[in-house]
């Protein structure tokens, strides 16, 4: 089974849970304390795709969120095969700006795979309004979207597997 490595960037505003999603996906654990990310943290995770008879090694770039990344985003985004765009369900503004992140990322990496995630779903009782809101923006990019929770793990594996599937096809 061939093994391919793909660079995946996690994009989104600060404190939406990018690092927590990676920690849940890579190490299957969660830490509630918020520790801002500086620069870029690299993690790796193998995803086996039997249907493609491929093992994809996702090289996950955990980038600092918000305006801290703005001046350096182009350098960080280079060579990316895909991106997980993350928003915070409690902060509607973090959903709206995902469009900006997607535009910048695809400008640098044309044809890159995108997956949208609305994180912290464990904090809201009803996911319906957020699903609709995220669906609207994801549909614009013809990308899948997932409602995730790094705390309880819901949707995390599915989001990264979907991303692995998309980058493996490229």
């Amino acid at each position, binding site marked *: 089974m061939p093994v391919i490595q793909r*660079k995946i960037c996690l994009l989104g505003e600060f*404190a939406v849970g990018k690092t927590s999603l990676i920690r849940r996906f890579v190490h299957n654990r969660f830490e509630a304390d918020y520790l801002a990310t*500086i*620069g870029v943290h*690299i993690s790796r995770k193998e995803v086996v795709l039997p249907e493609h008879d491929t093992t994809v090694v996702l*090289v996950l770039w955990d980038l600092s969120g918000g305006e801290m990344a703005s001046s350096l985003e182009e350098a960080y985004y280079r*060579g990316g095969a895909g991106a997980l765009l993350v928003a915070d369900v409690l902060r509607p503004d973090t959903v709206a*700006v995902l469009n900006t992140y997607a535009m910048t990322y695809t400008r640098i990496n044309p044809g890159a795979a995108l997956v949208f995630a609305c994180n912290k779903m464990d904090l809201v009782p009803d996911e319906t309004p957020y699903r609709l809101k995220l669906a609207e923006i994801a549909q614009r990019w013809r990308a899948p979207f997932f409602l995730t929770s790094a705390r309880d793990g819901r949707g995390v594996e599915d989001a990264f597997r979907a991303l692995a599937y998309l980058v493996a096809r490229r």
Partner: protein
Amino acid sequence: MYPSFPLSKENETGLARIDADLRLQDYSPFFAQVVGVTTPGLPLAEVLPVFAGVEDWLRQMRQRGPRIWELRFVHHIPPDGSEPRYLDLSIAVDETGEGWHLSARDVTAAAERLHQEVQRFNDIRIRGHQPPAAHHLMRRLGPGILVALWEHLGLMLAVVDANLIIEAVTPPTTMTLQRPLIGLPLTEVLPTLAGLEGELQRIVRGEAAPWRLPGLQLDPELPQHWDILFIPRTDAAGLLIIVQRTVNETLIEQELRQQRNELTLLHKELEAQAMALRTANERLVNLDRERRALMALIVGDIKSALSVIGGYSEWLTRPASTAIAFQQEAVVSIREAVAQIDRLLDRVMTIERLENKLVQLQRTPCDVHLLLEEAVVMRQEHARMQHLDLQIELPERLPPVSGDAQVLAEGFGRLLDYAIGRAIPSARIEVSSRVWKEWVLVEVTVGIPGRPEQAAVKALPSSSQHVFELTQVRLVVESHDGHLALEETKNGLQLVVWLPLAGEAKDRSNVTVDRGKDDAMGLGQYEPLVVAGGTLRLDRTRRQAWLYERPLLLTPLEYRLLVYLAQHRDRVIGHKELLAVLGHEEGEMSLNHLRVLIARLRNKLGDSEEASGILRTVRGVGYTLAS
């Protein structure tokens, strides 16, 4: 050892060469130290995982560029197991176009500092749930703009949604108001804005222009004033609220406006008072003019009547007047002249009564108690130096008297000065006061306790200062419709001042006086009095008087006059005192009327002024009943 690779000017930067297969070809010692590798030939992606998955991109650099790729603050876990660190990496296509040069610089210290700042800033924003409007502002202007706005401009920002619920505030706002504000209605946080929701909603809907409210007090318990600007949000329905401390000029302006308003009110009040004074003064001037004119007329009429009487009296003494017809004519004329004088005197009385009422209107109730205490306290030290014992004994409460407090205070002072001046060393001066009928009596007694045989007062030289003092006191007292009595006893001196009660107190006193008038005078029902060698007997039940066992036909006023003179027969009664006693119920009485009354009583007593019999005149002072 890495001979062909240019070394960095900065010795903390490690350098390495990457071959065409993306393997570590060779490196500087410092690179090995920074990155934590010791073996050449390792794949680059293993040495630095950040380059994993981007091999295609790196190869593209050789054909399409860019020729160099820089990555800052890359978190690196060294393969040798040393401490994780942050690196700034730069990879560039080398001069052959096949391989790459790689530099690595340890920026862990800088990254930690940056990390602390970002962490703090993000923490603040997480608590505030930074709204889009402020977020975009920050994206344009950089992080910390809100803190800078507060620190340098004193601005606070808040964002509310379409329902005026607070979505976000700058941290200083929260810190200033000392409570979390997110999610609260705006009017709950700022009660000053309650009732303005409608107008604010109009701004949200774009139906009204942005609104500036200057000088608002955000919290009633905080003294600061603020200017608030409401601006509609562009990112969503809602308002961006900018709050800034009101500048001092505004506060000063408000204070000046307040003072100006107060001065205006005061000016209007003073103008009204001045107008009232002018009107009252004009009325007084007119009244005085009319009084003078009226008095001139009356005096002229009286003189005319008196000349008639004088003419006929002279004519009657002539022998030619013995004719009955002439005598009758003279008597009729004289009677008419007397009647005319009576009528004129009544008019004089009426005028005087009106004048007295006017004077009373100008007077205010005075606290005798307070005035006496002040007069005594001010002279205690002086009395002590004169070896005098100055004491004051007053009842708990004295009713007020009618008059001018300043004038009365001067009178009391002079009275005490007179007593102190007359007293000999070691004498005791007692000041007491009590209510008697419609009067307040102020009594000053000079004596030496336990030594009644020794006079306590000095001899009084006729030209001494003491005479002046007493005269002044008499003037003061009489100007208040009161009177002064001076009695020198064997043991000392007694001064008594009568002052009329004021207003309500006087009315209450009248009730008491009327209830037992004669009892109050201290006369028994048939108590005989020895006067001028005869016996005067008064029957208070039938208001009857007998002299030498002969009944006297007296009018009520004449009867009261006689009773008062009898009750105070041991002293001279002043004109003012008699006028006050007699004139109370009959209206104010004039001195002329009193003289007429005295003359009639004397006539009925069979007395005459020249004979100085029963009812004696003490010129310049008053009358007394001879004992």
